[in-house]
């Protein structure tokens, strides 16, 4: 449904997006992750025909974003970052305007407006002027205009910013539901959102694509060691020394200091993948005279993956592997 090949955008000497390629299948929800200024919004702007790429191509439903821009835009629902809306208009009038520019059949128009209004929970603010609405409602009006005309492809740039937890929940459910019949690209930096909604994720850093896979696959790829998280009371130096003596243990990281007086520190023990070291760890702790409060297997969270792929230079990454 969406094919992106070697997409690049340069502003003078600055390369905002550097040679990005990926594909999105029909009905898929793709999470678009990256730190601020990584090139997420620039990529979405190219895919929505707002700015042309410097080089490379992008096709949506088989139409090129540059050569067949109008055909692409007919199939697109876009919610830009911060939901820019005409603040002097009433919600109903605004959605009517959108239904007209999106060329919706005049007979279908009012039905379509009603549908988006109820889908985005805008019934009670329909006759309000947009400038008087809260951030959450404005975001929903932005979503409503994107859904107008039931487009095949939806591009949502941080759709849940400024919403309260209940609204975030509703919008997530809505996006999940939309994913059944639509192709969705969801840009966000709220990570739990991605693990909950998205089929696959793309991680962009400094304009480059650094990962493209499902969360499970990325976790598997990036897990180089078996990890066990333990909470042990006692002198940290002694604990680390004792644990390092255990056969199969590669490294011990102190993850977190004790949060209460008398509580234990939290460590992550990296060990060889082919070795179950849990019993030996327990024995070593007890033998050293420390108090074992807690132990459980530890797997990489999306946050860990994200930090590993975006925050660290190549040297730090190599360090993590050893």
């Amino acid at each position, binding site marked *: 449904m969406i094919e992106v090949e070697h997409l690049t955008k340069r502003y003078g000497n600055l390369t905002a997006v550097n040679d990005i390629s990926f594909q999105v299948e029909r009905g898929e929800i793709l999470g678009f992750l990256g730190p601020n200024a990584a090139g997420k919004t620039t990529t979405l702007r190219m895919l929505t025909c707002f700015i042309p790429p410097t080089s490379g191509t992008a096709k949506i439903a088989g139409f090129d974003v540059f050569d067949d821009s109008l055909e692409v*835009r007919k199939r697109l629902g876009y919610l830009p970052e911060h939901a820019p809306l*005409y603040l002097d208009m009433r919600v109903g009038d605004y959605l009517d305007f*959108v239904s007209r520019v999106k060329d919706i059949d005049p007979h279908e128009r009012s039905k379509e407006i009603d549908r988006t209004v109820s889908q985005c929970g805008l019934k009670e603010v329909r006759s309000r002027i947009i400038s008087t609405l809260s951030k959450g409602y404005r975001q929903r009006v932005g979503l409503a205009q994107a859904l107008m005309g039931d487009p095949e492809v939806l591009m949502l740039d941080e759709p849940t910013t400024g919403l309260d937890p209940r609204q975030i929940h509703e919008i997530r459910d809505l996006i999940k539901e939309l994913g059944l019949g639509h192709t969705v690209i969801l840009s966000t930096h709220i990570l739990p959102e991605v693990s909950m909604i998205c089929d696959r994720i793309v991680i962009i850093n400094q304009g480059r694509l650094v990962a493209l896979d499902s969360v499970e696959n990325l976790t598997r790829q990036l897990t180089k060691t078996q990890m066990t998280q333990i909470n042990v009371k006692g002198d940290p130096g002694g604990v680390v020394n004792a644990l390092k003596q255990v056969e199969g243990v590669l490294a011990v990281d102190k993850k977190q200091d004790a949060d209460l007086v008398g509580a234990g520190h939290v460590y992550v023990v990296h060990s060889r993948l082919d070795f179950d070291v849990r019993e030996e760890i327990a024995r070593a702790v007890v033998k050293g005279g420390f108090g074992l409060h807690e132990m459980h297997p530890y797997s990489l969270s999306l946050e860990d993956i994200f930090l590993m792929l975006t925050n660290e230079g190549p040297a730090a990454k190599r360090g993590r592997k050893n």
Partner: protein
Amino acid sequence: MRNVNTIASRELKSYFVSPIAYAVSFFFLLILGGWFYFITVVSHHEASLRSTLDILGYLSIPVAAVITMHLFSEERHSGTIELLMTYPLKDWEVVIGKYVASLLLYAFALALTLQYPLFLGMFGNPDWGTILTGYIGALLMGASFLAMGVLSSSLSRSAVVSAIICLLVLFGLRFLAAGVVLGGPVGKTFYYLSFAGQYGDLANGLIDTRDIVYLVTFIFFTLFAAIRVIEINRWK
């Protein structure tokens, strides 16, 4: 064409919910009404709109700048341009739609001044033909000022800067006529290039094909340039 209509009616509604439409109409009526009463009626005892329409030639410049300054600047400033340009609309439809809205507002303000010829008709015997050509000229000249305003608005993110560009260019073109003092063909060229040269005759009730061609060409080229600027803005 339907898209032009949609854009134009949205802009027009926006004029009337903001103070712009009322401020422009008030300004028009205040200055033209004052001029009409004190100069034409009290001082000259003339049953003609000539001097009133002459003043309109100057007054329309700031009015055009005010009407058009926000058209594109505001969309770029607030970011709404991003949605507008990703809807299935052609660039020219957006430009013409906004232009038509500004033209309708100008025509509305101009229509309010039709009361002056009505008064002339009640108390005197004006030359209706001259008045009609005067109004056609005023409308055509306003249309070219507004086209320049649309172009200026596409050039800057700031409405104030857009208005300043528009004022500079239009007053510049207006006072180009001063070049006539140079005499000879150079002076004539200056005079013909200026708005004063074109509009003067129309205000006096003379329809000269050259004037019409000048103004229509001016409108055509400035709007064409505005469409290109909108295209170029995408590349930046």
